[in-house]
Structure formats: structure tokens, C-alpha cells
């Protein structure tokens, strides 16, 4: 049935509108070719940017990932990794774990100041705030929380118990991730450990305080299991042991 005249209003397309479209398309075509107009996810993580950055990250770190069988397939989890000072551990570990398990892994600890904060948010960074961590865990996301950074590569720093609280509240598992990287070499490792279960059932804030100590202990045991530095030159290995 053809519509009657009264049913339709015809808005003529303005010539100016066509000019805007043409000029805009021409100018932005090269940009769109190299930077497709993908959107970011609900938390601001940009899979396209990560896809572009990953090859560069692989030039710096050759990460061996292990222990993925411990991670839940669909549910959220809080992963806690050790961190060596200035090593960018959360970034390379999150990128490597994401690629290995096929799920986005977000890391905690981006600053909230431009331009680094927004850039790290696009790489999957969350603020070191319980609300941000809880929001992600409630939506079944994998969140990587670094410990306090240490100078020694095989020492696990203290775990911020206020950031473990969201995992207790959301009822998700906590998994230690032992990481090791070299300041000069490309070789790096990220090993996921088994689910850390609390020794005591607590109703109050002691739950996360005790869990934080337990996770640090687990991490330290895993790092001890990695063994020392193995360059093939014994004196260098002894020196590296500090």
C-alpha cells in the first residue's frame, strides 16, 4: 500500500550536508584505513589498540605462560602477580595472559592523569580503587593485581588487602601468578598457581587481611620454585642472586 501524502514528510537533503560528508570521508579515509572505527569495551579497553601493541610488546618480552588450567573458563577471577620495580610486569603479564587464555585480562594500577592514564585504560588498566576492581569482578572479568614492587626479581611484595576485598565480596577465586623477567633480556615467564582458599572462615575484614598474607606466601613459594638466574655463566648467576 502506498503511503498517502499526509503520512510522509519529505526532508530534502541539503547540498551542504553532502559536501560535509564528502570532505569528511576524503580527509578521514587514510585514518580509517589504518585505524578502523572499532569501539572500546564497557571498561574502556580497546582490543584493536591491543592488537596493534602486542607485536611491539613481543619485541621486548617473550613470555612463556603456564598454569592456565587453574583459571575458570567463564567466571571472574582475581589474579595476583609479583612485580619487580620498573619492569612493567602488570602490562606484559596481562597482555600475555589475555592472548594465552583468549579472554581479556585487566590490570590494576593505572594512573588517573593524561596521557598515561587514558592510554593504559585502553590497554585494559583499572584504577587501584576497590570500586573499579569490584565492578570488573562482578562482570566476570579476569583482573590482574600486582603486589608492592620489589627490587629483587624473586621476592613477592606485600599484597594490598583492601584490593582483595572486592574478590571476597564478589565471591570469585584468587589465583597467584608468579612472574619473572629480565631487565635486559627478552625472556619472561608468567605461571598461574592454584586457587588460594582461605584457611579460616571469617565474616569481617580479617578475611582479606589473612588472604593477602596467604597469597603473598603462595607467590613466594612459586618464585622459589622457579630457581635462580641461569645465564650459563656461574659467576654472573651468583651476582644476579644479589
Amino acid at each position, binding site marked *: 500500500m502506498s503511503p498517502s501524502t499526509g503520512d510522509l514528510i519529505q526532508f530534502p537533503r541539503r547540498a551542504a550536508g553532502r559536501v560535509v560528508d564528502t570532505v569528511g570521508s576524503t*580527509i578521514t579515509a587514510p585514518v580509517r584505513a589504518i585505524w578502523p*572505527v572499532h569501539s572500546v569495551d564497557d571498561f*574502556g579497553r580497546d582490543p584493536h589498540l591491543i592488537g596493534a601493541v602486542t607485536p611491539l610488546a613481543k619485541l621486548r618480552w617473550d613470555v612463556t605462560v603456564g598454569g592456565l588450567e587453574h583459571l575458570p573458563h567463564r567466571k571472574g577471577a582475581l589474579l595476583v602477580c609479583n612485580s619487580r620495580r620498573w619492569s612493567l610486569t602488570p602490562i606484559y603479564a596481562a597482555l600475555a595472559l589475555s592472548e594465552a587464555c583468549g579472554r581479556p585480562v585487566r590490570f590494576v594500577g593505572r594512573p588517573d592523569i593524561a596521557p598515561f592514564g*587514558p592510554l593504559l585504560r585502553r590497554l585494559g588498566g583499572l584504577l587501584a580503587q576497590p570500586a573499579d576492581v569490584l565492578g570488573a569482578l*562482578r562482570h566476570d572479568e579476569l583482573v590482574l593485581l600486582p603486589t608492592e614492587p620489589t627490587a629483587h626479581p624473586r621476592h613477592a611484595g606485600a599484597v594490598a588487602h583492601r584490593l582483595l576485598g572486592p574478590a571476597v565480596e564478589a565471591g570469585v577465586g584468587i589465583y597467584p601468578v608468579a612472574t619473572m623477567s629480565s631487565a635486559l633480556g627478552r625472556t619472561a615467564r608468567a605461571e598461574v598457581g592454584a586457587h588460594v582458599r582461605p584457611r579460616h572462615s571469617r565474616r569481617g575484614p580479617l578475611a582479606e587481611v589473612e588472604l593477602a598474607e596467604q597469597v603473598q606466601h603462595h607467590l613466594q613459594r612459586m618464585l622459589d620454585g622457579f630457581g635462580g638466574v641461569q645465564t650459563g655463566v656461574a659467576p654472573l648467576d651468583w651476582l644476579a642472586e644479589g
Partner: protein
Amino acid sequence: MLVSGMGGELGSLVAAKLENEPWVGSLVGIDVDPPRRRLRLAEFHLLQPSQRERIVEVVTKFNPHVVINLSVWEPDARAGLAHARQFTADATTAVIGAAAECPALEGMVVRSGLEVYGRGRNSPTRPDETAVLHPTSEYGKMLAEIERQARAVGRRVKIAVGKLRLAPVLGKHVPSPLGRVLRQPVVPFSALADAPFAVIEDGDAATAFVAAAHGRLDEPVNIVAPGAITALQAILRGHRVPLALVGPEWWLAGKLSHMVGAPIPDHVVELMHRGRLADGAKAGELLGFAPKLTTPEVIDHLYAWESVVRIGSVGGEIEGVA
């Protein structure tokens, strides 16, 4: 059912949807502009926000069971900041105050926005409804005041008060400063931040209001389309020319944009610099509400300007033909 703000695009959509609901008896609307859609059942009163006594008279005479308050003037959408602030304050006082005088009143649903959370340093990236309200823009402060007044009345007369915190509402005919800025030929964006934001389509927002009124919602709920987008991504999707700005030149860009008819209020600048995301999961749990369009789809619709608009009948049959 009483809809305050029925003349706006969102109010007209809400009214059209309410007319199709079997649980809605009589429907009365008030606003400063006549409804933008053909309504079959609604009774409309053309009233200025300053006509408080007349508003009180109309509302109390009707004695509604539910009031939906959409009388919110977003700065630089239909009025400048000073007028928007004044109109919103007047309308809120009159409508919420009048509603409190109605003995049959069971519930009230008020329009609010994600701007109430504010975007201060270290504020949550994706706040849920439990986040502390700390508005950092004029519009956010206006909305927080509406929530405060509605909450106070709710406690006093013991009615359910639902607060729908909408993401920026976009649609082809919605007067929105964000939509207007994004549709300019050359669109500024923050080169250092290019922060992600979420939006909601006007039809989805209207659906949420109907669901909230039906369910006698009694708490705040975020209404957000799934997904997010950055200003640069939106600009490229719309085939506009991006203009990267880093700081002080935002002032000049704002003035130029104002001159060409697309003023950039502080809450839009804040959105471009700091982003605006929110957790919308609670809307699904409490209202059974799921937006039809994702954020990137809403942005695509914003740019898909129609050549023909079908205005045959209102309600679900309204659709644009590209």
C-alpha cells in the same frame, strides 16, 4: 499517570509508550512546549515552569498514582546554562511539591543522569548505583538537586521514588549538546585523553521510564547502552573531520562552536576529557530492561540523518525510513 515534561522528545516518547500500556488509565502531561508526537489519549496542559500555582492546581486535581518527572533542561540543549538552571529548579519545585499533595500518589520516577557521579580525580571508572554522588559539572549538580528533592519528598510522604540516571540521551530529534557537537563538520576531541563514554538512545530511555513507573521503582538505576566509544571513534564513524586539542585551545574551540550553533557545555567537555561510563546491570535485574541499541549503534543512528520521516501513527509504528 502524570508526565511532567511531555512536550520534549523524550517526554513525548514516554507518553506514546504509556498510551499503549494496558495498566495505564488516564494520562495527563504538562510542559512548556506541546508534545512532539500525535497522542490519542493524553490530556496536555501548556504551562511554564514558573506557573507554580497553576501546576499545583492541575496536578492535585488530577491526583495521579504515578508521576514521571522529565522536566529537566540540559544546559545548552534547549536553553543556556542560566535559563536551564532556573527552569529546572522551578519545574522541580512545582512538580515534586505538587505531587506530594496528591493522596493517591504511590510512586514517582525522576530523570537524573550519570553526571551526578562526577569525574573528579580517581573517581570510579564505571560507577554503579552505590557510588558516592560527587557532581563536578553544572548539569550534574542540577540533577543531584532533583534527586535530593525527590528523595526528601519520598521519605516525607512515604512513596516509592525511582531515579533513572541516564547516560547522555541521543537520537535523531533529541536536542542534545553532545549530539550537536558530534554532528558538526569538524569535531574537537581531546588528543591526550580521548576517553570512552556510553550513551543511550531516546527510545530505550523511554522504555526504561515506562518499566520504572510500572514496577514502582524505589531506588536509583543507571540506564546505559552496552559498549562504549571514544570521541575520535565516533567522529571517524560519522565521517567528520577530527580536530585534536590538547588543552587551552578548548576555550577557543568552545567559543567558535558556540558561534556556529553548537555550544559545548562543561559536562560535555568533561565527557570528552574524562569519559562517562557506568554499570547498567541493575536496570536489567530490577526492571527487566535491556537496551535495544548498543552505544556504537546509537552513534551510527545519530549520523544516519533521514531523508523521509514516517509520521503515520504513534507508538511502536513510528519509524524512520532512510
